[in-house]
């Protein structure tokens, strides 16, 4: 039950992260305590990126090795990636409201996360509409690769688009450097998120394997 130990580890990690964010890190001068959303908000975004990178790598691995285990990792990681991206978007909205009084700002980073979210929800939906596992895996892998390649292009497009129509920026712009303690708090939160991602992935993979087992037995009973 390796996943059980990772589960406990991620729980401890989360507790230390909370300690780091609420106790260790100093209060930001201008924005006040609401700025503490920043740590989880940014970590969620980075974990979203990491999850989609795992989808990209396992998609390529599947196309080369034709082993459904890679397809399973890609699909589960995409799901968790969407979960983290959703959290990032939600916390972004809840942060923009108190700071600028608007629900949504077309801030470059937030917009990019929204595009990522859309891309990988389409990836998941594509899988829902194909029956045969090998075919589904191949098509999802191809789209997973195309979607991930879209990310850097999106990044550039949105950044230039932002310079044309500047709007409030979540992180207070490039200029405002972070205080050392804030950095440390962020690093701790990132580590806790990484543990959490691994735990969720392991758990989701177990569910997926059981699901395939059920399908196998159902097919067996059906053809009895």
């Amino acid at each position, binding site marked *: 039950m390796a996943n059980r130990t990772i589960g406990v580890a991620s729980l401890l990690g989360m507790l230390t992260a909370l300690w780091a964010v609420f106790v260790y890190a100093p209060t930001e001068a201008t924005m006040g305590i609401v700025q503490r*959303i920043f740590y989880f908000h940014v970590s969620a975004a980075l974990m979203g990126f990491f999850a989609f990178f795992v989808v990209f790598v396992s998609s390529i691995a599947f196309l080369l090795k034709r082993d459904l285990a890679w397809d399973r990792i890609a699909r589960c990681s995409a799901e968790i990636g969407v979960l983290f991206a959703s959290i990032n978007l939600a916390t972004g909205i809840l*942060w923009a409201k*108190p700071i600028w009084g608007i629900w949504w700002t077309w801030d470059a980073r937030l917009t990019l996360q929204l595009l990522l979210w859309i891309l990988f929800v389409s990836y998941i939906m594509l899988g829902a509409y194909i029956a045969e596992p090998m075919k589904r895996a191949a098509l999802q892998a191809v789209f997973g690769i195309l979607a991930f390649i879209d990310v850097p292009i999106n990044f550039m497009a949105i950044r230039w688009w932002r310079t044309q129509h500047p709007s409030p920026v979540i992180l207070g712009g490039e200029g405002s450097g972070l205080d050392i303690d804030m950095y440390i708090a962020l690093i701790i939160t990132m580590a806790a998120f990484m543990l959490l991602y691994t735990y969720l992935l392991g758990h989701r993979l177990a569910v997926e394997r059981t699901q395939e087992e059920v399908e196998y037995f159902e097919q067996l*009973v059906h053809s009895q």
Partner: protein
Amino acid sequence: MNWLVAAYSVFFIGIFAYTLMMSRKQKDLDRRIEELRSLIKESDLHDS
């Protein structure tokens, strides 16, 4: 202040709901497997 609470509760609710959903699904699937196994055992006894 309550924005802060809202943001962090969104996070924990999200993660907790997802984990809960997964473990509930895991339980259902395990139960389903047991059902199917007994079904197969029954029909094996039946045939042999």
